[in-house]
């Protein structure tokens, strides 16, 4: 191999190395841009959600009775008594279909689904549900959807239950 050929080869390999480095850098930049773009697309409220959840739970706990608070801290649910019917409801931590209506034996017989408008976090939803059932039960259930248990009419707590919307 002549010295001229060696020089050309060296220059070509140098150029290839530069090109490869530039490509890797470009790809890395594109990945970073895509990631930051995705984060940018996350809503303002989504980023604040953990803080909102904590704030709402603090508010909820301040409005629960000692027994309700104890139940919530033990099992992430608490029970309320409907002001109009005297029915006992179990409000589970959550924002949708999270209210069980209990029978005299404390078994769920149906599930209610209602919540305040506005995409609120769980603590706020549960507090609004508690206030509604304890102070204006009938009108609250008037707007709610009722889900009934299919199959076993008295399922045990924790068993697999299938809740269906009535026709």
């Amino acid at each position, binding site marked *: 191999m002549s010295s001229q050929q060696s020089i050309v080869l060296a220059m070509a390999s140098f150029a290839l190395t530069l090109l490869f480095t530039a490509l890797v850098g470009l790809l890395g930049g594109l990945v970073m841009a895509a990631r930051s773009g995705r984060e940018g697309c996350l809503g303002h409220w989504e980023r604040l959600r953990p803080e*909102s959840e904590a704030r*709402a739970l603090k508010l909820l706990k301040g409005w629960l*009775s000692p027994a309700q608070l104890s139940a919530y801290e033990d099992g992430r649910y608490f029970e309320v008594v409907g002001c109009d019917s005297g029915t006992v409801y179990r409000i589970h931590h959550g924002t*949708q*279909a999270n209210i069980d209506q209990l029978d005299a034996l404390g078994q769920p017989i149906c599930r209610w689904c209602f919540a305040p408008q*506005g995409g609120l976090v769980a603590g706020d939803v549960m507090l609004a549900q508690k*206030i509604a059932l304890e102070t*204006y039960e009938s009108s609250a259930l008037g707007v*709610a959807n009722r889900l009934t248990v299919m199959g076993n009419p008295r399922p045990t707590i924790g068993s697999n239950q299938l809740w269906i919307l009535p026709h």
Partner: protein
Amino acid sequence: MAWTSALQVADIRAKIDCAAKMEFPMPVQIVMDRAGDTRHTFDAGDRAAVEKAEKRFIELTGAGFTAAVRSGPGEQRIIRSFDASTEETLFHPRLVGG
């Protein structure tokens, strides 16, 4: 003698301030929202602040919010009209079926 008088005046002023705070506590209106809640405190002894709070109450309830106040441990009642002496009023948005 002058020092004693100054101290007495300061003491009396502190007592008046304390009494005023006891008579006019800082009520708070808590409005549930996507941030958890937003709190609006106002001075119950300040007429303009009370009027602003009343306006907020009327606007919120007019928009479908329910106003509740605590009436005991774990107990609450719904209020339909503004009361400046209420220490804490909670507003939750209109309920809808899920």
